[in-house]
Protein backbone atom coordinates (compact mmCIF):
# COMPACT_ATOMS: atom_id res chain seq x y z
CA UNK A 1 0.00 0.00 0.00
CA UNK A 2 2.61 2.51 1.04
CA UNK A 3 4.92 1.58 -1.83
CA UNK A 4 2.25 2.34 -4.41
CA UNK A 5 2.11 5.97 -3.33
CA UNK A 6 5.84 6.56 -3.84
CA UNK A 7 6.52 9.13 -6.51
CA UNK A 8 9.10 8.57 -9.20
CA UNK A 9 12.20 10.74 -9.06
CA UNK A 10 12.84 12.68 -12.21
CA UNK A 11 15.65 14.75 -13.61
CA UNK A 12 15.19 18.49 -13.89
CA UNK A 13 17.61 20.51 -15.94
CA UNK A 14 18.23 23.86 -14.31
CA UNK A 15 19.93 25.66 -17.15
CA UNK A 16 21.77 26.17 -19.42
CA UNK A 17 19.07 28.70 -20.20
CA UNK A 18 17.45 29.57 -16.90
CA UNK A 19 16.79 32.89 -15.20
CA UNK A 20 18.85 32.01 -12.16
CA UNK A 21 21.97 30.33 -13.43
CA UNK A 22 23.73 33.69 -13.98
CA UNK A 23 24.89 32.72 -17.44
CA UNK A 24 25.09 29.50 -19.34
CA UNK A 25 25.56 27.03 -16.56
CA UNK A 26 23.55 23.93 -15.94
CA UNK A 27 22.72 21.84 -12.92
CA UNK A 28 21.10 18.50 -13.49
CA UNK A 29 19.09 17.91 -10.36
CA UNK A 30 17.33 14.66 -9.63
CA UNK A 31 14.23 15.52 -7.69
CA UNK A 32 11.65 13.55 -5.80
CA UNK A 33 8.75 15.94 -5.76
CA UNK A 34 10.43 19.11 -4.56
CA UNK A 35 13.31 17.44 -2.76
CA UNK A 36 16.70 17.33 -4.42
CA UNK A 37 18.26 13.87 -4.38
CA UNK A 38 21.27 14.55 -6.54
CA UNK A 39 22.86 17.49 -8.28
CA UNK A 40 25.33 17.32 -11.11
CA UNK A 41 27.01 20.34 -12.62
CA UNK A 42 27.48 20.65 -16.34
CA UNK A 43 29.69 23.47 -17.48
CA UNK A 44 31.87 24.47 -20.38
CA UNK A 45 29.32 26.31 -22.46
CA UNK A 46 31.48 29.41 -22.26
CA UNK A 47 34.86 27.73 -22.48
CA UNK A 48 37.29 29.81 -24.52
CA UNK A 49 40.51 28.07 -23.55
CA UNK A 50 42.11 31.23 -22.25
CA UNK A 51 44.97 29.32 -20.74
CA UNK A 52 45.95 28.04 -24.16
CA UNK A 53 45.46 31.36 -25.90
CA UNK A 54 47.64 33.10 -23.32
CA UNK A 55 50.58 30.88 -24.20
CA UNK A 56 50.71 32.49 -27.62
CA UNK A 57 50.66 36.12 -26.49
CA UNK A 58 53.12 38.34 -24.67
CA UNK A 59 52.79 39.06 -20.98
CA UNK A 60 51.30 42.48 -21.62
CA UNK A 61 48.91 41.22 -24.24
CA UNK A 62 47.46 38.81 -21.74
CA UNK A 63 46.07 41.52 -19.47
CA UNK A 64 42.87 42.00 -21.50
CA UNK A 65 42.24 38.25 -21.32
CA UNK A 66 42.02 38.42 -17.58
CA UNK A 67 39.27 41.03 -17.94
CA UNK A 68 37.16 38.47 -19.69
CA UNK A 69 37.32 35.71 -17.15
CA UNK A 70 35.44 37.24 -14.26
CA UNK A 71 33.82 40.03 -16.21
CA UNK A 72 32.24 41.49 -13.09
CA UNK A 73 35.54 42.26 -11.41
CA UNK A 74 38.02 42.91 -14.16
CA UNK A 75 40.19 45.20 -12.03
CA UNK A 76 40.89 42.46 -9.50
CA UNK A 77 41.71 40.05 -12.30
CA UNK A 78 44.14 42.52 -13.86
CA UNK A 79 45.71 43.07 -10.48
CA UNK A 80 46.21 39.39 -9.74
CA UNK A 81 47.80 38.76 -13.09
CA UNK A 82 50.07 41.79 -12.89
CA UNK A 83 51.17 40.78 -9.41
CA UNK A 84 52.06 37.34 -10.69
CA UNK A 85 54.12 38.75 -13.55
CA UNK A 86 55.82 41.22 -11.24
CA UNK A 87 56.66 38.42 -8.87
CA UNK A 88 58.02 36.38 -11.74
CA UNK A 89 60.09 39.19 -13.19
CA UNK A 90 60.97 40.92 -9.95
CA UNK A 91 59.43 44.27 -10.87
CA UNK A 92 58.57 46.82 -8.21
CA UNK A 93 55.59 49.16 -8.22
CA UNK A 94 55.73 52.82 -7.11
CA UNK A 95 53.71 53.77 -4.04
CA UNK A 96 51.19 55.77 -6.04
CA UNK A 97 50.62 52.86 -8.36
CA UNK A 98 49.94 50.61 -5.39
CA UNK A 99 47.47 53.05 -3.86
CA UNK A 100 45.61 53.46 -7.16
CA UNK A 101 45.48 49.71 -7.51
CA UNK A 102 44.00 49.39 -4.04
CA UNK A 103 41.35 52.02 -4.76
CA UNK A 104 40.41 50.40 -8.03
CA UNK A 105 40.35 46.89 -6.63
CA UNK A 106 38.12 47.98 -3.77
CA UNK A 107 35.79 49.93 -6.06
CA UNK A 108 35.57 46.82 -8.16
CA UNK A 109 34.78 44.75 -5.10
CA UNK A 110 31.97 47.17 -4.27
CA UNK A 111 30.60 46.91 -7.80
CA UNK A 112 30.87 43.16 -7.81
CA UNK A 113 29.25 42.77 -4.40
CA UNK A 114 26.42 45.08 -5.49
CA UNK A 115 25.79 42.65 -8.29
CA UNK A 116 26.20 39.63 -6.05
CA UNK A 117 23.83 40.90 -3.40
CA UNK A 118 21.27 42.04 -5.95
CA UNK A 119 21.33 38.84 -7.94
CA UNK A 120 21.16 36.76 -4.79
CA UNK A 121 18.06 38.53 -3.56
CA UNK A 122 16.59 38.14 -6.99
CA UNK A 123 17.13 34.41 -6.65
CA UNK A 124 15.26 34.40 -3.37
CA UNK A 125 12.34 35.87 -5.27
CA UNK A 126 12.44 39.56 -4.47
CA UNK A 127 11.17 40.59 -7.83
CA UNK A 128 13.90 42.81 -9.33
CA UNK A 129 13.74 45.56 -6.74
CA UNK A 130 16.99 44.89 -4.84
CA UNK A 131 18.83 44.04 -8.02
CA UNK A 132 17.72 47.31 -9.59
CA UNK A 133 18.78 49.27 -6.54
CA UNK A 134 22.13 47.53 -6.58
CA UNK A 135 22.53 48.20 -10.27
CA UNK A 136 21.87 51.87 -9.69
CA UNK A 137 24.87 52.05 -7.36
CA UNK A 138 26.98 49.81 -9.56
CA UNK A 139 26.40 52.14 -12.48
CA UNK A 140 27.96 54.99 -10.50
CA UNK A 141 31.06 52.91 -9.84
CA UNK A 142 31.27 51.95 -13.49
CA UNK A 143 31.02 55.64 -14.35
CA UNK A 144 34.13 56.20 -12.29
CA UNK A 145 35.92 53.42 -14.13
CA UNK A 146 34.89 54.96 -17.40
CA UNK A 147 36.24 58.29 -16.26
CA UNK A 148 39.56 56.73 -15.31
CA UNK A 149 40.29 54.22 -18.01
CA UNK A 150 37.63 54.61 -20.67
CA UNK A 151 35.99 51.25 -20.15
CA UNK A 152 33.20 50.22 -17.85
CA UNK A 153 33.23 46.46 -17.72
CA UNK A 154 36.47 45.15 -19.17
CA UNK A 155 38.75 47.82 -17.81
CA UNK A 156 42.23 46.62 -18.79
CA UNK A 157 43.61 49.31 -16.49
CA UNK A 158 46.40 47.63 -14.56
CA UNK A 159 49.76 47.26 -16.19
CA UNK A 160 52.82 45.28 -15.23
CA UNK A 161 54.62 47.66 -12.91
CA UNK A 162 51.70 49.93 -12.12
CA UNK A 163 48.60 51.21 -13.83
CA UNK A 164 47.96 52.39 -17.37
CA UNK A 165 47.30 56.08 -16.72
CA UNK A 166 47.37 58.40 -13.78
CA UNK A 167 44.07 59.37 -12.18
CA UNK A 168 42.18 62.29 -13.76
CA UNK A 169 41.70 65.42 -11.70
CA UNK A 170 37.99 64.82 -11.25
CA UNK A 171 38.58 61.36 -9.84
CA UNK A 172 38.99 62.12 -6.19
CA UNK A 173 35.90 64.34 -5.70
CA UNK A 174 33.84 61.87 -7.72
CA UNK A 175 34.91 58.94 -5.58
CA UNK A 176 34.31 60.85 -2.37
CA UNK A 177 30.82 61.78 -3.55
CA UNK A 178 30.20 58.16 -4.51
CA UNK A 179 31.30 56.90 -1.11
CA UNK A 180 28.97 59.36 0.60
CA UNK A 181 26.11 57.96 -1.46
CA UNK A 182 27.08 54.35 -0.95
CA UNK A 183 26.88 54.37 2.83
CA UNK A 184 23.14 55.09 2.96
CA UNK A 185 22.61 52.66 0.10
CA UNK A 186 24.16 49.81 2.06
CA UNK A 187 22.03 50.68 5.07
CA UNK A 188 18.98 50.83 2.85
CA UNK A 189 19.73 47.44 1.35
CA UNK A 190 20.24 46.01 4.80
CA UNK A 191 17.00 47.53 5.99
CA UNK A 192 15.14 46.06 3.03
CA UNK A 193 16.44 42.55 3.45
CA UNK A 194 18.12 41.75 6.74
CA UNK A 195 15.03 42.43 8.81
CA UNK A 196 12.75 40.75 6.31
CA UNK A 197 11.27 37.58 7.75
CA UNK A 198 10.67 36.01 4.35
CA UNK A 199 14.23 36.66 3.30
CA UNK A 200 15.47 35.16 6.57
CA UNK A 201 13.24 32.14 6.15
CA UNK A 202 14.52 31.56 2.67
CA UNK A 203 18.21 31.94 3.42
CA UNK A 204 18.88 30.95 7.02
CA UNK A 205 19.87 27.34 7.43
CA UNK A 206 19.99 26.89 3.66
CA UNK A 207 23.18 25.53 2.18
CA UNK A 208 24.99 25.22 5.50
CA UNK A 209 28.72 24.58 5.26
CA UNK A 210 30.69 23.68 8.35
CA UNK A 211 34.18 25.21 8.59
CA UNK A 212 35.69 21.76 8.00
CA UNK A 213 33.65 21.24 4.85
CA UNK A 214 34.47 24.70 3.58
CA UNK A 215 38.19 24.19 4.15
CA UNK A 216 38.30 20.74 2.70
CA UNK A 217 36.41 21.82 -0.41
CA UNK A 218 39.08 24.50 -1.07
CA UNK A 219 36.53 27.28 -0.86
CA UNK A 220 37.61 30.86 -0.51
CA UNK A 221 36.23 34.34 -0.19
CA UNK A 222 32.79 35.01 1.29
CA UNK A 223 31.96 31.30 1.40
CA UNK A 224 34.91 30.58 3.64
CA UNK A 225 34.28 33.66 5.74
CA UNK A 226 30.58 32.88 5.95
CA UNK A 227 31.51 29.62 7.61
CA UNK A 228 33.36 31.50 10.30
CA UNK A 229 36.95 31.23 9.07
CA UNK A 230 38.74 34.54 9.32
CA UNK A 231 40.75 34.30 6.14
CA UNK A 232 41.25 37.29 3.94
CA UNK A 233 44.36 37.54 1.81
CA UNK A 234 44.40 41.29 2.22
CA UNK A 235 45.13 40.66 5.90
CA UNK A 236 46.89 37.33 5.73
CA UNK A 237 49.16 37.99 2.79
CA UNK A 238 49.03 41.73 2.17
CA UNK A 239 49.83 42.93 -1.33
CA UNK A 240 49.83 46.47 -2.75
CA UNK A 241 50.32 47.88 0.72
CA UNK A 242 47.11 46.62 2.26
CA UNK A 243 48.93 46.38 5.59
CA UNK A 244 48.77 50.20 5.88
CA UNK A 245 44.99 50.29 5.93
CA UNK A 246 42.79 49.65 8.88
CA UNK A 247 39.93 47.30 8.17
CA UNK A 248 38.31 44.17 9.56
CA UNK A 249 37.43 40.78 8.21
CA UNK A 250 33.68 40.10 8.42
CA UNK A 251 32.82 36.51 9.20
CA UNK A 252 29.53 34.68 9.51
CA UNK A 253 27.99 32.52 12.18
CA UNK A 254 26.90 29.14 10.89
CA UNK A 255 27.88 29.14 7.24
CA UNK A 256 24.48 29.38 5.61
CA UNK A 257 23.40 31.49 2.66
CA UNK A 258 22.33 34.32 4.91
CA UNK A 259 25.77 34.51 6.48
CA UNK A 260 27.37 34.82 3.07
CA UNK A 261 24.95 37.64 2.33
CA UNK A 262 25.75 39.62 5.48
CA UNK A 263 29.45 38.99 4.98
CA UNK A 264 29.21 40.57 1.53
CA UNK A 265 27.25 43.52 2.89
CA UNK A 266 29.83 44.07 5.61
CA UNK A 267 32.68 43.72 3.14
CA UNK A 268 31.19 46.59 1.19
CA UNK A 269 31.43 48.74 4.31
CA UNK A 270 35.04 47.69 4.85
CA UNK A 271 35.85 48.49 1.24
CA UNK A 272 34.49 51.98 1.66
CA UNK A 273 36.71 52.34 4.71
CA UNK A 274 39.77 51.22 2.77
CA UNK A 275 39.07 53.51 -0.18
CA UNK A 276 38.70 56.48 2.14
CA UNK A 277 42.06 55.75 3.79
CA UNK A 278 43.74 55.20 0.44
CA UNK A 279 42.34 58.45 -0.92
CA UNK A 280 43.46 60.38 2.13
CA UNK A 281 46.98 59.04 1.91
CA UNK A 282 47.32 59.00 -1.85
CA UNK A 283 51.06 59.52 -2.45
CA UNK A 284 52.51 61.52 -5.32
CA UNK A 285 55.10 60.36 -7.75
CA UNK A 286 54.90 58.15 -10.79
CA UNK A 287 51.98 55.79 -11.24
CA UNK A 288 53.99 53.09 -12.95
CA UNK A 289 57.50 51.83 -13.54
CA UNK A 290 58.89 51.53 -17.00
CA UNK A 291 58.62 47.95 -18.14
CA UNK A 292 59.78 46.79 -21.57
CA UNK A 293 56.89 45.86 -23.79
CA UNK A 294 58.48 42.60 -24.80
CA UNK A 295 59.01 41.49 -21.26
CA UNK A 296 61.06 38.34 -20.85
CA UNK A 297 60.95 37.24 -17.22
CA UNK A 298 63.69 34.86 -16.14
CA UNK A 299 63.02 31.16 -16.19
CA UNK A 300 60.96 30.09 -13.22
CA UNK A 301 57.49 30.05 -11.87
CA UNK A 302 55.35 32.20 -9.64
CA UNK A 303 52.01 31.83 -7.90
CA UNK A 304 50.47 35.14 -6.87
CA UNK A 305 47.02 35.61 -5.49
CA UNK A 306 44.72 38.43 -4.54
CA UNK A 307 41.51 38.52 -2.59
CA UNK A 308 39.08 38.89 -5.47
CA UNK A 309 35.41 39.59 -5.01
CA UNK A 310 34.61 35.90 -5.13
CA UNK A 311 37.58 34.57 -3.26
CA UNK A 312 41.19 33.76 -3.73
CA UNK A 313 42.08 34.67 -7.30
CA UNK A 314 45.41 33.08 -8.08
CA UNK A 315 47.61 33.13 -11.14
CA UNK A 316 50.20 30.45 -11.62
CA UNK A 317 52.73 31.45 -14.25
CA UNK A 318 55.65 29.45 -15.60
CA UNK A 319 58.23 31.26 -17.67
CA UNK A 320 60.70 29.67 -20.04
CA UNK A 321 62.59 32.92 -20.59
CA UNK A 322 60.39 33.68 -23.58
CA UNK A 323 58.18 36.68 -24.33
CA UNK A 324 54.98 34.79 -23.52
CA UNK A 325 54.12 32.65 -20.52
CA UNK A 326 54.97 28.99 -20.85
CA UNK A 327 52.03 28.06 -18.66
CA UNK A 328 49.27 30.38 -17.57
CA UNK A 329 46.89 28.92 -15.02
CA UNK A 330 44.07 30.79 -13.34
CA UNK A 331 42.91 29.64 -9.95
CA UNK A 332 39.33 30.74 -10.55
CA UNK A 333 37.40 31.21 -7.31
CA UNK A 334 33.96 30.77 -8.88
CA UNK A 335 35.03 27.46 -10.35
CA UNK A 336 36.51 26.04 -7.19
CA UNK A 337 33.74 27.39 -4.99
CA UNK A 338 31.35 25.19 -6.92
CA UNK A 339 33.06 22.13 -5.42
CA UNK A 340 30.69 22.36 -2.49
CA UNK A 341 27.52 22.91 -4.51
CA UNK A 342 26.41 19.31 -4.33
CA UNK A 343 26.84 19.09 -0.56
CA UNK A 344 24.84 22.28 -0.12
CA UNK A 345 21.95 21.41 -2.43
CA UNK A 346 21.26 17.74 -1.82
CA UNK A 347 18.53 17.33 0.76
CA UNK A 348 17.02 20.73 0.18
CA UNK A 349 14.33 21.73 -2.27
CA UNK A 350 14.67 23.05 -5.79
CA UNK A 351 14.06 26.54 -4.50
CA UNK A 352 16.91 26.08 -2.01
CA UNK A 353 19.23 24.96 -4.77
CA UNK A 354 18.63 28.25 -6.55
CA UNK A 355 19.32 30.22 -3.39
CA UNK A 356 22.52 28.26 -2.76
CA UNK A 357 23.73 28.87 -6.29
CA UNK A 358 22.99 32.56 -5.85
CA UNK A 359 24.87 32.65 -2.55
CA UNK A 360 27.97 31.15 -4.15
CA UNK A 361 27.86 34.07 -6.59
CA UNK A 362 29.30 32.43 -9.65
CA UNK A 363 30.42 34.16 -12.80
CA UNK A 364 30.26 31.72 -15.66
CA UNK A 365 33.01 33.48 -17.59
CA UNK A 366 35.32 32.59 -14.78
CA UNK A 367 34.09 29.04 -14.31
CA UNK A 368 34.58 28.11 -17.92
CA UNK A 369 37.40 30.53 -18.73
Amino acid at each position, binding site marked *: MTDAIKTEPFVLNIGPQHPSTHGVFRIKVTVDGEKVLDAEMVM*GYLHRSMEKLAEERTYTQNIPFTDRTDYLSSMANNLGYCLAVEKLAGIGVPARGDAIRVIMAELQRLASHCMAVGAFTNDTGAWQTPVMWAFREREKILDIFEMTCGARLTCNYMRIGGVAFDLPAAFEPAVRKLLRELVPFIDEMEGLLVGNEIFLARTRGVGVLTPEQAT*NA*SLSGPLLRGSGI*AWDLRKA*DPYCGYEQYDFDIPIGYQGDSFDRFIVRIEEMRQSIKIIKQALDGLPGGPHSTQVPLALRPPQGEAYARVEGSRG*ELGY*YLVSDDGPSPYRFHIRAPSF*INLSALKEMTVGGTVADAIVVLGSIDVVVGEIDR
Partner: protein
Amino acid sequence: MPTREWTGEEVAAAAERLVPGSVARTTAGACYLKAEKLVEAIEALRSSPDTDFVHLTNLCGVDYWDHFEVVYHLQSFVRNQICCLKIEVWDREKAVAPSVVPVFHGAWMQECEAYDLLGIRFEGHPNLHRIFLWEGYPGWPLRKDFLSMPGGLQPGLNEFAGTARRPEPATRLVQ
Protein backbone atom coordinates in the same frame (compact mmCIF):
# COMPACT_ATOMS: atom_id res chain seq x y z
CA MET B 1 52.37 39.80 8.44
CA PRO B 2 52.63 38.20 5.02
CA THR B 3 52.11 34.53 4.43
CA ARG B 4 55.31 32.55 4.88
CA GLU B 5 56.19 30.67 1.73
CA TRP B 6 57.97 27.48 2.59
CA THR B 7 61.05 26.74 0.59
CA GLY B 8 61.41 23.40 -1.09
CA GLU B 9 63.85 22.18 1.53
CA GLU B 10 61.54 22.98 4.39
CA VAL B 11 58.66 21.10 2.80
CA ALA B 12 60.95 18.23 1.92
CA ALA B 13 62.18 18.01 5.51
CA ALA B 14 58.65 17.99 6.88
CA ALA B 15 57.44 15.45 4.34
CA GLU B 16 60.43 13.21 4.87
CA ARG B 17 59.89 13.35 8.62
CA LEU B 18 56.19 12.51 8.35
CA VAL B 19 56.33 9.99 5.52
CA PRO B 20 59.88 8.67 5.07
CA GLY B 21 60.94 8.13 1.50
CA SER B 22 58.29 10.33 -0.06
CA VAL B 23 60.49 13.10 -1.44
CA ALA B 24 62.03 12.75 -4.88
CA ARG B 25 63.97 16.02 -5.13
CA THR B 26 63.65 19.66 -4.21
CA THR B 27 64.04 22.99 -5.93
CA ALA B 28 64.14 26.46 -4.42
CA GLY B 29 60.38 26.93 -4.36
CA ALA B 30 58.92 23.47 -4.60
CA CYS B 31 59.26 19.96 -3.33
CA TYR B 32 58.93 17.06 -5.76
CA LEU B 33 57.21 14.09 -4.20
CA LYS B 34 57.16 10.54 -5.42
CA ALA B 35 53.84 9.89 -7.07
CA GLU B 36 53.14 6.66 -5.20
CA LYS B 37 53.63 8.39 -1.84
CA LEU B 38 51.78 11.59 -2.75
CA VAL B 39 48.41 10.92 -1.15
CA GLU B 40 50.00 9.64 2.02
CA ALA B 41 52.35 12.63 2.26
CA ILE B 42 49.61 15.16 1.59
CA GLU B 43 47.38 13.54 4.17
CA ALA B 44 50.24 13.70 6.69
CA LEU B 45 51.02 17.34 5.86
CA ARG B 46 47.35 18.19 6.30
CA SER B 47 46.80 16.48 9.63
CA SER B 48 50.14 17.11 11.33
CA PRO B 49 49.70 20.08 13.69
CA ASP B 50 53.04 21.74 12.91
CA THR B 51 52.46 21.72 9.17
CA ASP B 52 48.64 22.08 9.20
CA PHE B 53 48.25 22.44 5.43
CA VAL B 54 44.46 22.13 5.52
CA HIS B 55 43.55 24.04 2.37
CA LEU B 56 44.38 22.85 -1.12
CA THR B 57 44.57 26.24 -2.75
CA ASN B 58 45.58 25.41 -6.25
CA LEU B 59 46.04 22.32 -8.37
CA CYS B 60 47.17 22.43 -11.94
CA GLY B 61 49.14 20.49 -14.47
CA VAL B 62 52.01 21.76 -16.61
CA ASP B 63 53.27 20.20 -19.81
CA TYR B 64 57.07 20.17 -20.21
CA TRP B 65 57.13 18.40 -23.58
CA ASP B 66 58.69 15.24 -22.23
CA HIS B 67 56.81 15.01 -18.96
CA PHE B 68 53.96 16.56 -17.00
CA GLU B 69 54.11 18.13 -13.62
CA VAL B 70 51.13 18.36 -11.33
CA VAL B 71 51.47 21.33 -9.01
CA TYR B 72 49.74 21.50 -5.62
CA HIS B 73 49.66 24.64 -3.52
CA LEU B 74 48.68 23.94 0.06
CA GLN B 75 48.13 26.52 2.73
CA SER B 76 47.41 26.77 6.40
CA PHE B 77 45.08 29.36 7.88
CA VAL B 78 46.17 29.22 11.47
CA ARG B 79 49.91 29.17 10.79
CA ASN B 80 49.54 31.45 7.73
CA GLN B 81 51.89 29.56 5.47
CA ILE B 82 51.84 28.17 1.96
CA CYS B 83 53.86 25.48 0.26
CA CYS B 84 54.23 24.09 -3.20
CA LEU B 85 54.33 20.37 -3.93
CA LYS B 86 54.85 18.76 -7.29
CA ILE B 87 54.86 15.37 -8.86
CA GLU B 88 56.19 14.37 -12.22
CA VAL B 89 54.35 12.21 -14.70
CA TRP B 90 56.58 10.81 -17.39
CA ASP B 91 54.42 8.63 -19.60
CA ARG B 92 52.80 10.93 -22.14
CA GLU B 93 50.64 8.30 -23.73
CA LYS B 94 49.21 7.01 -20.48
CA ALA B 95 49.72 9.90 -18.09
CA VAL B 96 48.53 8.73 -14.71
CA ALA B 97 48.75 10.54 -11.39
CA PRO B 98 47.26 9.65 -8.02
CA SER B 99 44.12 11.54 -7.09
CA VAL B 100 44.04 13.55 -3.90
CA VAL B 101 40.24 13.72 -3.78
CA PRO B 102 40.16 11.32 -0.79
CA VAL B 103 42.14 13.92 1.17
CA PHE B 104 40.89 17.19 -0.30
CA HIS B 105 37.38 17.37 -1.68
CA GLY B 106 38.36 20.60 -3.38
CA ALA B 107 40.61 18.69 -5.75
CA TRP B 108 37.56 17.12 -7.41
CA MET B 109 36.91 19.73 -9.99
CA GLN B 110 40.49 20.88 -10.41
CA GLU B 111 41.58 17.33 -11.24
CA CYS B 112 38.73 17.08 -13.72
CA GLU B 113 39.99 20.26 -15.30
CA ALA B 114 43.57 18.98 -15.51
CA TYR B 115 42.28 15.76 -17.04
CA ASP B 116 40.13 17.60 -19.51
CA LEU B 117 42.77 19.99 -20.75
CA LEU B 118 46.00 18.04 -20.27
CA GLY B 119 44.93 14.44 -20.34
CA ILE B 120 46.42 13.49 -16.99
CA ARG B 121 44.35 10.61 -15.69
CA PHE B 122 43.94 10.81 -11.91
CA GLU B 123 43.71 7.35 -10.44
CA GLY B 124 41.15 7.07 -7.68
CA HIS B 125 39.05 10.06 -8.69
CA PRO B 126 35.40 9.16 -8.13
CA ASN B 127 34.06 10.77 -11.29
CA LEU B 128 36.80 11.81 -13.66
CA HIS B 129 35.23 13.28 -16.77
CA ARG B 130 35.84 16.05 -19.27
CA ILE B 131 34.44 19.00 -17.42
CA PHE B 132 34.58 21.77 -20.05
CA LEU B 133 34.87 19.93 -23.34
CA TRP B 134 32.67 17.13 -24.45
CA GLU B 135 33.50 13.45 -24.23
CA GLY B 136 35.21 12.47 -27.43
CA TYR B 137 36.88 15.82 -28.04
CA PRO B 138 39.98 15.07 -30.04
CA GLY B 139 43.18 15.57 -28.09
CA TRP B 140 44.08 17.53 -24.97
CA PRO B 141 44.19 21.26 -25.70
CA LEU B 142 46.71 22.42 -23.14
CA ARG B 143 49.38 20.00 -24.26
CA LYS B 144 52.15 21.76 -26.06
CA ASP B 145 51.94 19.44 -29.03
CA PHE B 146 48.16 19.79 -29.34
CA LEU B 147 48.33 21.19 -32.83
CA SER B 148 50.54 18.42 -34.10
CA MET B 149 48.74 15.64 -32.27
CA PRO B 150 46.98 13.07 -34.36
CA GLY B 151 43.37 14.06 -34.18
CA GLY B 152 44.21 17.49 -32.82
CA LEU B 153 42.77 20.77 -34.01
CA GLN B 154 44.33 22.10 -37.17
CA PRO B 155 44.99 25.85 -37.37
CA GLY B 156 42.61 27.84 -39.47
CA LEU B 157 38.89 27.62 -39.89
CA ASN B 158 38.81 23.91 -40.61
CA GLU B 159 36.75 21.28 -38.96
CA PHE B 160 38.24 18.94 -36.41
CA ALA B 161 40.46 16.34 -37.90
CA GLY B 162 38.89 12.97 -37.71
CA THR B 163 35.36 14.30 -38.03
CA ALA B 164 33.76 14.40 -41.42
CA ARG B 165 34.99 17.38 -43.35
CA ARG B 166 32.65 19.56 -45.30
CA PRO B 167 33.02 18.75 -48.97
CA GLU B 168 34.77 21.41 -50.96
CA PRO B 169 32.29 23.60 -52.79
CA ALA B 170 32.22 22.51 -56.38
CA THR B 171 33.74 25.33 -58.40
CA ARG B 172 32.78 25.68 -62.00
CA LEU B 173 35.37 26.95 -64.34
CA VAL B 174 34.27 29.95 -66.24
CA GLN B 175 34.98 29.55 -69.84
